[in-house]
């Protein structure tokens, strides 16, 4: 313990140096989202600039701070100044920023989004007061985008590993008691009280027990777990130590999908650092607790996020779920008692053990304590990774944090392919496990997809069901065959070949699959269809009875035309059309040949944004069917 205490002191000194920097420090948001926006190119530009101009500066790649719509984010902290954050930085703006701020010492306010102090600084508002961040309560994400994820010292300096130190002073039963008092529920989707699962495992007979971190995150559009691991891996690992200690496990495994190479790399580095600091191995910090962590990569199967399929995958078998009982907490990996916790559940634990259960209960509400991270994406102005208290309404999330929708709000999809689409009437629904379930959806792992009038709900339902059908392991009949039929029917409807009976068939099929399927994948697969049927029945009927897709998405039901009166002949659409369906000389209204048109929407998008002509291309649905 003393060895660590010394390291903590050193770490805190290092951190102090960084905060009271004597030389410029440049932070670049270079998690996967930042990299996708071009952050790595900016890093090399910055390094080149700094070298060419003989400046002693430190460049740190940090994780994701949340507002992905502002990526790439570049922060500059000059000595004596607060950290200033620049958003949507491209190469040209970067050059200006570096010259102005780094060389002339003047923040380039035009491109700045905020400063990291609590007050305004030279007309730049505080970063965390911006409307997207202000309502958020950042507990799990507290370090993301702030610290260097590859530096264990940064984590130690911000009170990291305090949680496990506190836990080791208690008995494992007491640790479970703290988690019970805090009211933590599993953040992977089911929302099962964490302490209950732990208690079963603790009491189960067996010498060898396992703790598995489920980092498979298969939901399309969800990236909360990825961001957390890339930005603050030690939070998750400390959580594993705490959980392992509580249940009596000596081995921990992180099951992470192979499609997250940066996260895997960061985990490996973090684990190696933990070993160096005596936080892994035998008798951790002088206690009787021994723990080791291994990484197991997935191989591209959504179903392996399911508990028993995940266990089968680690055992080297085909990832197919099995019936329960026996439950993994009693007989799991290699027949030993096993607990599987989600990345976010584990990431919350250090905070609870550091600040106490009572502190955690201040957030959220009775039965739904604490906070939850969400990936807010879709047709929303401000998309990104957010963390809010449980009980926050959808309206708050979408319109206050998310900045609302550009066009007209239509629906919000929660919980990924296992969840449902909720319509406008649910905007005041509080986001908690029970409320969402009663509306027919689920909390899921935290994906929130916002849809506007340009989204066809039938198409969305088909998309999710197609995903589930392709990912189905094939073991049980209801899921394998039932979802196939549902996809076929939805496909027919989107091609305008549906019949009114189809809606009843869909509902019955959905019912059968929900009741008959073996695992969670099958049992929740019909949810998107069932919720859209419930809340957007009219859209289905329009497709079937009128052959009309009001969101003008379903290709067989729509046709593209040029409005000659509005067309200015700017040729923008001609340039983007992949099949050459649009033709016409400059400054004359264009012609669109429907036989060549593949309905890719490129012309529509570009015409909509061009301020000059705007809306000259229009999509009409087919004539009413007789």
């Amino acid at each position: 313990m003393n060895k660590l205490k010394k390291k903590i002191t050193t770490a805190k000194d290092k951190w102090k140096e960084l905060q009271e920097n004597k030389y410029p420090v440049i932070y670049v948001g270079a998690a996967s989202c930042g990299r996708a926006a071009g952050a790595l190119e900016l890093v090399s530009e910055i390094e080149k600039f700094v070298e060419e101009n003989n400046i002693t500066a430190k460049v740190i790649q940090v994780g994701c701070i949340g507002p992905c719509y502002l990526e790439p984010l570049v922060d500059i902290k000059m000595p004596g100044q607060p950290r200033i954050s620049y958003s949507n930085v491209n190469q040209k703006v970067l050059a200006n920023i570096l010259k102005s701020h780094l060389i002339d010492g003047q923040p380039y306010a035009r491109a700045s989004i905020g400063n990291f102090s609590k007050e305004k600084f030279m007309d730049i508002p505080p970063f965390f007061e911006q409307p997207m961040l202000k309502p958020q309560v950042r507990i799990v994400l507290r370090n993301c985008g702030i610290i260097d994820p590859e530096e264990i010292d940064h984590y130690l300096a911000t009170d990291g590993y305090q949680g496990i130190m506190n836990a080791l002073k208690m008995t494992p039963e007491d640790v479970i008691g703290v988690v019970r008092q805090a009211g933590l529920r599993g953040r992977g989707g089911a929302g099962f009280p964490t302490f209950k699962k732990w208690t079963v495992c603790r009491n189960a007979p067996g010498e060898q027990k396992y703790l598995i971190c489920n980092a498979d995150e298969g939901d399309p559009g969800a990236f909360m777990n990825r961001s957390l691991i890339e930005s603050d891996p030690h939070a998750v690992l400390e959580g594993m130590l705490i959980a392992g200690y509580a249940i009596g496990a000596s081995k921990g495994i992180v099951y992470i999908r192979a499609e997250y190479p940066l996260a895997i790399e960061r985990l490996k580095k973090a684990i190696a650092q933990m070993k160096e600091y005596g936080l892994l191995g035998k008798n951790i910090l002088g206690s009787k607790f021994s723990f080791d962590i291994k990484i197991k990569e997935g191989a591209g199967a959504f179903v392996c996020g399911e508990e028993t399929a995940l266990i089968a995958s680690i055992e080297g078998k085909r990832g197919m779920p099995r019936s329960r009982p026996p439950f993994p907490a009693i007989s799991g990996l290699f027949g030993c008692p096993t607990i599987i916790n989600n990345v976010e559940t584990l990431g919350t634990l250090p905070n609870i053990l550091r600040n106490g259960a009572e502190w955690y209960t201040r957030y959220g509400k009775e039965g739904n304590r604490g906070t939850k991270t969400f990936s807010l994406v879709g047709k929303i102005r401000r998309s990104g990774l957010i963390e809010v208290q449980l009980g926050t309404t959808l309206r708050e999330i979408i319109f206050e944090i998310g900045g609302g929708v550009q066009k007209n709000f239509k629906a919000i999809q929660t919980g990924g392919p296992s969840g449902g689409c909720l319509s406008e009437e649910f905007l005041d629904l509080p986001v908690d496990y029970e409320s969402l379930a009663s509306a027919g959806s689920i909390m899921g792992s935290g994906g929130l997809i916002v849809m506007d009038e340009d989204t066809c709900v039938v198409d969305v339902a088909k998309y999710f069901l197609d995903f589930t059908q392709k990912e189905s392991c094939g073991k049980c009949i209801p899921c394998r065959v039932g979802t196939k039929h549902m996809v076929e029917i939805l496909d027919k409807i989107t091609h305008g070949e549906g019949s009114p009976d189809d809606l009843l068939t869909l509902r019955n099929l959905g019912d059968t699959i929900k009741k008959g399927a073996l695992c969670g994948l099958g049992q929740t697969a019909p949810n998107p269809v069932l919720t859209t049927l419930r809340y957007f029945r009219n859209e289905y009927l329009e497709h079937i009875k009128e052959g009309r897709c009001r969101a003008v998405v379903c290709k067989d039901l729509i046709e593209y035309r040029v409005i000659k009166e509005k067309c200015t002949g700017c040729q923008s659409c001609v340039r983007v059309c992949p099949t050459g369906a649009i033709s016409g000389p400059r400054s004359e209204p264009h012609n669109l040949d429907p036989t060549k048109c593949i309905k890719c929407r490129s012309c529509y998008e570009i015409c909509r944004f061009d301020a000059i002509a705007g809306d000259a291309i229009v999509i009409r649905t087919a004539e009413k069917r007789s």
Partner: protein
Amino acid sequence: MTKEKTVNITIDNQRLEVKAGLTILQAARLNNIYIPSLCAMEHLPSYGACRLCIVEVDGIRGFPTSCTTPVDEGMVIRTDTQELRNLRQEILKLLLSEHPASCLFCSEKDECMEFQGTIRKVGYTTGCRYCPNDHRCELQTITEKIGLTETSYPVYYRNFPIEKYDPFYDRDYNLCILCGRCIRVCNDIRLNGTLSFKQRGQLTTIGPAFDRSHIEAGCEFCGACVNVCPTGTLSVKTGKWYGAPEKEIKTTCNFCSIGCVLKLQTKNNTVIDSVPDYDSPIDKGIICVKGRFCITEYVHSPTRYDSPMEMTPVGYNNIDWEQALNMASEKIGSSKPDESMFIVSPYMLNEDLFVAQEFARKTIGTDNIISAPLLYLSDDFVPYWNMTCRSFGIDAIKDAHAIITIGFNSLYDYSPIGIEIKKSARNGACVVTINHKETNLDMLSHSSIQAEPSLWHDILDALIGDKRKAISKTAEEVFKKEHIDIEEIRKLFSSAKSRIIVLGHQSINHPKRSDLFHKIEDAIEKKSWGIIMANPYTNLMGMLLMGAFPGIRPKDILLEDPRDGFLNLKSGIFNPDLNKKKKLIYVLGDVPADLLPDCDYLIYQNAIPGRFSRQPDLILPTTIFPESEGTILNSEHLFMPVNKVIEPHMDSKQDWWILQAISERMKKGKLKYKNLQSIQTEIKKLIKGYPNNKKRIEFKRLGISGVTKTKVDKYFPIPDFTRATHRGIALSDVVSGMKVIERSIDE
């Protein structure tokens, strides 16, 4: 006596007391409560995929499957509510939408059966009447039981290519309902692992991984998967279109000495299928390709003799038994005992052998009863027999911590031995395989050594010999080439409490077998190794017990007094003079063609033409074991019944009848056996407990008195000896599939 733990449960308002540890489905079946299921099966691990066996249980959310849920004290279960019925119907409808089942709902289905004679041979199955499994299909049964009369879901014909290019059974995965039984039996029961699920979603199908063929993937063609398939996906080529069998009769397989129990299914006096008995104590249902798939083509081979035949200058003439028997008795009567040669087969039944030895001694007047093992092994017959009679039961393998297999491959034979070795290896036993080619045990073994047979005795010596004794140079070279860690193996062996050597039949025919046999006897006597013989000669023990051997009378070899352990025979017995020309040779079954001396007259008694360098003068057709009645002695030294399952083919007769009938026409040495019972009565007088012995029969060991002459110098190249044979007939000559799979071993 401790009472078994039981729990009290309620099923459909019925209070029941059932054994703890059962699943709800098992408990229901034991109490005659019907719950439909397709993927659950006795002897297979539970799976829970078809979702038809769902029930309602108080306290458990949703609809748990009864095949995976264990019973608990006080459980309240409902199996037949309206909701369950509806759900089962819906699930069955979904299942049938993947399986061409138009006939199930067609109003013409009964008429159709009458009028379509040839439609069954259509390539693609689009309905029950076209399916090779019609009337034997579990899907048909369940649809009736669940009461499904219509479905509105379209049928998706998945368009998989029909797989017909492997031997013995065809596969049509368009009919597969993915119940997973075949995979479970292949992986968990047979420990083979050829089959697995491939792909996912609606593309899920079954087969070997990486698109390999079944032969490449190591399929043993044991047919266990075909047995458990509930639909017509897997169908035996020879039994396909027969429909439900008329009878199912148990008998004992005659293809090797293990003596597995087979249940032969027959229809129209034809053997249409052969299925294992999972409750049989010796083989536990693990049988090999020979007993499983070869019987139909062997017994009903078009090459079988229909009637006795005599050779004439212009070819063979069919004659009747009267003529044949007269000719035989005339020829035998006119030859002196030392001018004739009488050869029996170790594949014959006990009763046939008993009569044969009496025929030889009384009717022909000779004690020189030759047989193939005597000719093949000559002096080495003694150690071979001594190892055989000291051979442990197959059960001993599971307690062994050290196992060496020599010349043994259980890919296409000796499955009961092979499976026990695999299970032992899984549980941590140290298994070392020695063979001239790969074996199917290599993957699970600690080390596998491939070397020429002439080096095997050296290798064995090095493995189990004294640490202080130096390893021979040749053995050392082999170990280096094969990367064997000899020190580690020796350490594991010396600390093993129970050790067993398994000797396969590849060891019988090579130049240094004598050294090998003696090394093994050494190991048994001085180093506490046990031996298990994988003996291809089905009834070798019966042959000696019945006295069909020179110098051994019936019962002589029986060990009644432990002090009386040895039976000494003159050395000349093992080296008959094969150079002198004989006047008459009378062969029952097999002998290698080029070992036969020249003769004036050859009588051949068997079911199928053999390979002869000289054509027989008189042919007497016999029955094959499904047509015979009697007993054999199996590897556990117990009498096993061989039951008559079908009527004999045309004019063929069982061996003892022919010998009896010939003897009746002789001047002296007439035998008195009118029927099988009379033979059995005679044998009963000699052997206590026959034919229902519950206790293992023990045998005396053999010894040679007198000077041993130089051994016969005849050894056959190994590939020839790997052909599976029965009474001298190579199975690959009559069963096309055997040719294919045996060729794959040679390559």
